[in-house]
């Protein structure tokens, strides 16, 4: 002890390491501080005002698409624009993630098909969509394919009460007509679902006891749709459908999937699905052939082998790289401005920034939103990934 204490401080490796770390930290902090201070000083010197006081000012422009928030020209403020932007970003990201996952899984599986034509077709798909820049794809679908091929509103393609034209896809929208009837219907649906959960538990217990299997999935699906519709009639049909009606320029009323959203969704899905397909292929190929052979030896059917042996093990390989694809898709949605979809970067980091000039605040908030969305997505998926990893022995 005493001998150690005699080592001069400047030759003590632990102490030196600490000093250097503190120095490095000090430099970094000072660096960021002076960057910030210089920015602020320069803004002041050039007479550029900065701050958050513009949040409550009325936004002087219109936003065309806001499915969940009510945006009203002349009343909504800049901060409302911010939330509308987040809403539209999340909307296209969620739609894109769902569609890209389904399509990617499908392409990834048929990529391994023993049929030459099918597997080469999947390969061609992957190589084409993975290797063309996304912005080009978005503009290609919107300006070169959809806009020229879809008709003007007056000559819309009619499918019952559904209409398709160059402005988008117009659908009837269910609206609550009789609110007591609607409450009764929802209550009955909840009871029905609770019943199904009990049924599923019983069926599982029975399977573990006797080995007798029931097609729980199909039964539940049938009961929910069939029973749900029956209960809807019993509750006195509490919904009416708001149908789109052709006005002077375009359809009014009903639900609308605007073309810019559709183009963006379409392009993001095709692009991301190509990457997910490769993840799926890699995941399936990572499961050793011995696992399949062992399953067959145990007498499992081909379906059960895929469901119980291949997929659970493949998922462990598929999920981590797929998380990055989900994050990429979310961030790539910011290319929307090219086709006029009103997501966060278009309305907030674009229009609002240009009208107020508050670059620092607006870009900072935009960065923070993408940061939060990405962290949230990876948090959820990492949780799921951990859960399926636990099944390993």
């Amino acid at each position: 002890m005493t001998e150690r204490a005699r080592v001069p401080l400047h030759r003590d490796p632990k102490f030196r390491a600490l000093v250097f770390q503190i120095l490095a930290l000090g430099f970094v902090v000072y660096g960021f501080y002076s960057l910030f201070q210089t920015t602020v000083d320069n803004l002041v010197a050039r007479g550029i005002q900065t701050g958050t006081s513009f949040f409550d000012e009325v936004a002087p422009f219109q936003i065309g698409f806001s499915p969940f928030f009510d945006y009203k020209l002349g009343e909504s403020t800049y901060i409302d624009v911010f939330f509308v932007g987040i809403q539209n970003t999340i909307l296209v990201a969620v739609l894109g993630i769902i569609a890209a996952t389904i399509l990617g899984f499908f392409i990834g599986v048929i990529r391994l098909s023993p049929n030459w034509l099918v597997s080469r077709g999947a390969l061609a798909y992957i190589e084409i969509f993975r290797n063309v820049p996304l912005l080009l794809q978005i503009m290609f679908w919107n300006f070169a394919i959809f806009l020229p091929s879809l008709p003007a509103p007056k000559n819309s393609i009619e499918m019952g009460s559904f209409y398709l034209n160059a402005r988008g896809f117009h659908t009837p929208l269910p609206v609550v007509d009789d609110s007591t009837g609607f409450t009764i219907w929802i209550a009955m649906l909840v009871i029905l679902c609770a019943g199904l959960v009990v049924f599923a538990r019983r069926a599982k217990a029975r399977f573990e006891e006797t080995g007798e299997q029931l097609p729980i999935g199909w039964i539940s699906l049938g009961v929910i749709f069939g029973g749900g519709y029956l209960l809807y009639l019993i509750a006195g049909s509490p919904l009416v459908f708001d149908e789109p009606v052709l006005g002077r320029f375009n359809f009014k009323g009903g639900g609308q999937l605007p073309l810019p959203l559709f183009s963006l969704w379409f392009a993001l899905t095709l692009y991301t699905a190509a990457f997910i397909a490769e993840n799926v292929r890699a995941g399936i190929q990572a499961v050793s052939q011995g696992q399949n052979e062992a399953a067959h030896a145990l007498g499992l059917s081909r379906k059960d082998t895929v469901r119980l042996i291949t997929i659970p093990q493949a998922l462990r390989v598929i999920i981590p790289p797929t998380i990055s694809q989900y994050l990429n898709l979310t961030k790539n949605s910011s290319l929307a401005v090219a086709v006029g979809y009103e997501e966060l970067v278009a309305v907030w980091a674009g229009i609002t920034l240009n009208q107020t000039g508050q670059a620092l605040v607006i870009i900072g908030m935009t960065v923070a939103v993408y940061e939060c969305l990405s962290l949230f997505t990876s948090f959820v998926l990492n949780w799921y990934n951990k859960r399926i990893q636990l099944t390993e022995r």
Partner: protein
Amino acid sequence: MKLSAKIATTIAASAVAVAQVASAGTLDDVKARGELKCGVSGGVPGFSAPDDAGRMQGIDAAVCDAIAAAVLGDASKVTFIPLTAKERFTALASGEVDVLSRNTTHTLTREASLGLNFTYYNYIDGQGFMVMKDSGIKSTLELDGASICVQAGTTTELNMADYFRNNNMSFTPVGYETSTQTREGFEGGACDVLTSDKSQLAALSTEMKVGPEGVTILPETISKEPLGPVVRQGDDQWMDIVAMTLYALINAEELGITSGNIDKLKANPGNPNVARLVGTEGNMGELLGLGADWSYNAIKQVGNYGEIYERTVAKIGIPRAGSVNDLWTRGGILYAPPIR
């Protein structure tokens, strides 16, 4: 550890570098560089669009040429930097360009909060609406419920919102990043109407498949759009140079000085106003920090305002005679202070 210390030093050093960019003295910077960096739209015929040889042409581009001629003696020493509506002010404030000549409307908010100064106007415009001829629409008041293609983040977008609200009409905006995209959207049927400054509508209609005959530019003008070159705030000398160069071009037209006759007039000016403008009398250039032949170079190499207009904006089908963009002596409102 050593690496992180290095990185920290680099960050600190770059912070100092950022601080130095903020200095005034655009004139010295331009002279030292031997080149003027000019922010333009780059995609609007008549204002700034590349010609067959790749050289930027148009009334906005000509202003930059004239400034380069006045400051550097050579109108070709301009680097044109195409900017979107969104990028333009940041590019100017950060020093990426020396002057912004990009059909930019002068407004109070921009003047007061963006750290920049407007000089004078090289084109006075107004916002209008364009529809397909076969729609049969004759007035903007028939546009209730229409989808309208617009360039996002412009005053155009705000004027449109005000106009429709004022007239109790509804509309759906379809906002694009560039004016080329607004045209593509309009042609493809993404919207019923295209709105922009009227000069731009005329320019865009020349690029459409149906041509100018296939569209109608509605008669109403819903806004005032004085467009002109913009400079950074806090450099008064540079602001004077840009403004005076523009005034010199307008005064030259008023006094009948053209790129063709300026050499003859320089040898034998007669009128003292002409003599001052061609640089044989007074010390106008010196007062601005430029050479005595600053205005001579600008007029000789680029032409007077009228010559510029005829070879740029007139070409896209907007006649000048009697319009607001004519000289005050001929019923317009173009009025430049005297060079004396």
